[in-house]
């Protein structure tokens, strides 16, 4: 057994983020109005300690073990997700969704968090086993199925936010495995069509641009035709899909496009979040002193909108520090991916980096209305046990890949 050489910058960065996060969860509980978040910070500290223990344990396992366990974890996760559709429970304003694993009335956690890691491992196994990166659509059917099964199960809950993370992971890992960018764009094109279908002229422009790309990139004839047809189909399908969305999801999307259509309810969240952040200024109103948070103007201030508390109380300074830590963490993960000594580890590291990036950018973007409200948590900050465990689980895996990699000063000392 080889000694684990700890990637200190990575671990210290994750520790700093966790401490910062716990401090913000504490602040989120300090309000003038009774809130469920009052004692959340003590639980969060327990979760962080437990999570660090988990990360340490995971880091003791070898990358080979991760590769070997990818399939069983993946299967168990998919079964869990399937079970959720029957037995799952909701929470918050998405009470009608079924994202929580509930046993005997106790909410045990959100399997979607585990599913993200499971999909990364499984996808890495699938893509890493190839000698060449997929160059056509047909070759992509396997990775698509790997992501597709849990994705569909999660979208059925429905949990739009986690669904977005899956898509991000899928594209990032395809990119990392060497799939050419034009092909990625072509794959993504039907989804873009789906969004643009609501504006005919925009959709038309997109379609022409896509046609030009197809002619330039010259995929197989049948692929090009299929893609163009898929785009047309999506354009037609969009309104029908729109009708199929759960009312709260449809509403969230509409409010994202214009929060002022509903300033008292759904738009309220994002408007108050922007007010909180904007009123923070350069250095904020001071730790614990955010009035928007204190007086309950800020919704979900200890979970989805915790970054608004950072913006309000610590200002642009606090925001920049937090975002810099995240940037460092993700860059470090990319570095780990580059230095990994096998393709599986490299792909896992990059997939985890992508997962963090999507979480951070979507959650933070949501507080400024740059992204729709999807209920996606902020790593290391948002209050929640299973998410904290998942974050540190990723760190543990990352630590191991890093220590086995070339830049990781691999120690040969056995313990």
């Amino acid at each position, binding site marked *: 057994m080889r000694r684990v050489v700890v990637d200190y910058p990575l671990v210290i960065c994750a520790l700093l983020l966790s401490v910062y996060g716990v401090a913000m969860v504490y602040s989120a509980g300090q309000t003038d109005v009774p809130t469920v978040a009052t004692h959340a910070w003590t639980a969060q500290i327990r979760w962080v300690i437990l999570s660090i223990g988990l990360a340490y344990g995971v880091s003791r396992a070898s990358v080979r073990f991760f590769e070997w366990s990818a399939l069983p974890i993946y299967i168990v996760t998919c079964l869990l997700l399937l079970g959720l559709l029957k037995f799952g429970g909701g929470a918050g304003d998405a009470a009608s969704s079924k994202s929580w694993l509930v046993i005997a009335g106790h909410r045990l956690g959100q399997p979607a968090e585990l599913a993200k890691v499971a999909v990364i491992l499984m996808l890495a196994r699938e893509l890493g086993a190839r000698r060449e990166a997929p160059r056509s659509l047909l070759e992509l059917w396997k990775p698509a199925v790997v992501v597709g099964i849990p994705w569909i199960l999660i979208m059925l809950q429905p949990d739009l936010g986690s669904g977005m993370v899956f898509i991000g992971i899928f594209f990032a890992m395809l990119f990392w495995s060497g799939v050419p960018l034009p092909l990625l764009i072509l794959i993504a094109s039907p989804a873009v069509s789906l969004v643009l279908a609501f504006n005919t002229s925009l959709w038309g422009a997109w379609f022409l641009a896509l046609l030009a790309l197809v002619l330039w990139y010259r995929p197989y004839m049948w692929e090009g035709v299929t893609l163009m047809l898929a785009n047309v189909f999506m354009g037609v399908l969009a309104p029908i899909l729109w009708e199929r969305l759960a009312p709260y999801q449809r509403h969230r999307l509409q409010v994202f496009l214009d929060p002022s259509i509903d300033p008292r309810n759904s738009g309220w969240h994002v408007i108050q979040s922007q007010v909180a952040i904007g009123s923070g*200024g350069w250095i904020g109103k001071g730790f614990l002193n955010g*009035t928007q948070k204190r*007086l*309950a*103007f800020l919704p979900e201030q200890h979970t989805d909108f915790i970054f608004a508390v950072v913006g309000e109380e610590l200002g*642009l300074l606090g925001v920049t520090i937090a*975002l810099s830590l995240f940037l460092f963490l993700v860059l470090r993960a*990319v570095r780990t991916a*580059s230095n990994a000594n096998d393709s599986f580890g490299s792909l896992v590291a990059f997939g985890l980096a992508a997962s963090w990036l999507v979480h951070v950018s979507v959650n933070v973007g949501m507080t*400024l209305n740059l992204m729709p409200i999807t209920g996606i948590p902020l790593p290391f900050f948002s209050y929640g046990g299973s998410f904290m465990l998942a974050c540190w689980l990723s760190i543990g895996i990352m630590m191991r890949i890093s220590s086995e990699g070339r830049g990781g000063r691999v120690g040969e000392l056995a313990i």
Partner: protein
Amino acid sequence: MSFHPNEIARRARIASWALVGIFVLLISAFFKTQVVNYAKYSQQSETNRLREVPLPAPRGIIYDRNNQVIAENVPGYTVSILASSSDSLRAALTRLSAIIPLPAEQIDLAVRRYLRARNRPTAILSDASFDVVSVLEERRIDFPGLIIQSAPKRYYPDGAAVASFVGYVGEVTESELTMPRYQGYKTGQQVGKNGLEREYESRLRGREGVRFVEVDALGRVVREAGARDEVPAQAADPLYTNIDLPLQRFTAQIFGDSLQGGAIAIDPKTGGVLALYSAPSYNPNSFIGGIPPELWKSLNSDPRRPLFNKVTQGRYPPGSTWKLATAAIALERGLVTLDDHMPTPCTGGYQFGNRYFRCWDPKGHGSLTLAGAIEKSCDVYFYQLGLKIGLSSLVGGGIKLGARDKTGIDLPDESRPTFPYADAVNYYNRKYGPRGWSQAVLLNLSIGQGENSQTVVNMARFYTALATDGSAAKPEIVKDKPQRAQILQLAPDQLAGLRAALAGVITHGTAGSAAIQGVVLAGKTGTAQNAQDPLHHHAWFVGFAPAGDPKIVVAVMLEFGGHGTRAARIASKIIESYLKVAPTTFINTEG
């Protein structure tokens, strides 16, 4: 996957730059929100959490000429509620109605108020008693948006005695808020509704202060003080009036409950209004904090019209009190002297054309001088004097005396007297048609009947000119620079003669009962016919004392009061009270 180190490095570079790009984008979005738009969001956050609770300013105190208080402020409480929606307001009020009486209409009213100004506390009780306040203070925890604010409350110690000129205050109405006059006013504020309170609103108002309470997202008050520095209210400067409060009280007292009419006492030298009373009066204190609807209804439907100011708004034919105007116009034009007789002596009436015009005394007065005719109020003499003056001169002279003008007294809604305009022929042609009238109108005009209705205050103003050098003083309640207008071009001896004739009225003329021992009172009674009730004449008296050097002009008018001597008796008492001369028993000569 293609795992060649060069390719990996290339992808890592792309990924890293994309990452940096995304984070720069995010940070610049935060920069835009937190630095560029800081002011906007900062203000929005303050608006979110702070609610302004107005601190009403004490209105200016109103004093009489001897610094006795006419209107002051006493401690009071207002109860209001901060609500986040009309539904939550309604719910809170429904719960509140279990503790304090709160009729359904009042709840509806409060909800309407709330919808007009959502961010201001909605007034529930504008004058809460101490008992109600203490009950509410105990239950405060149950009503998170409740705000109990001490607020100065208007109080008029003399109540109904001073209402005629001081008016009252009340909450500014929705329609008033749309007027330019009330620009800058906010729902729930008190404004002067009548009298001096309204006329001097801008001076009496003071400056409202504001304190800030902190509320949470549901509009519940979280912090009562210290959220932001409060702006204290500024009291208005006091208002000093010419009113003589004891005289005002006395005037109100002698009118009592039964008499209906008005009286004004003016210092002829300055125009300062010493007393002004319209009977019946009302208690202005009952308006404070919202007048009960039943009381408001009864005040408005009372046939004696307590809210109608009979001194400044009522218009009545001046009757014989106008004869001094006719006399002055004739004297001014040199048509007669005080010693001149008219061609036809009074035999109880005067034949003009095919009509016979009666004198008030069917026994007749015989041949009189002008002074004698004033003393006896002989109609026949004045018929002939009017004919001598001629229609256009009589009308023109009357206009010069101010018969068509408001006095400019500092009270709101003064009525303009009615009197023919300068082109009298045209006036009558338009009124009755070219063939519908004759010179007979002249006879009526010259004895103060016909197309002539004067306010009590305007008659008093005219008599200030008689009492002085022929210049009329603008009646002023609030102390100000006196303003005079020369309306009579008469020699001092002519004015003295008129005053002597008026004094004669008191000593042996029609107002004999009004004589005051030791002080010579000069004045003229009037018994004016009115169209509303031909059987009950309006009783007038306008006069001044002492006749030699007048210090007070009094005009009294009793609606349907019968003969002018009744008014004269009241005027005489008012003057007595003012000049502090021992009362005397009235010699009740002829009626």
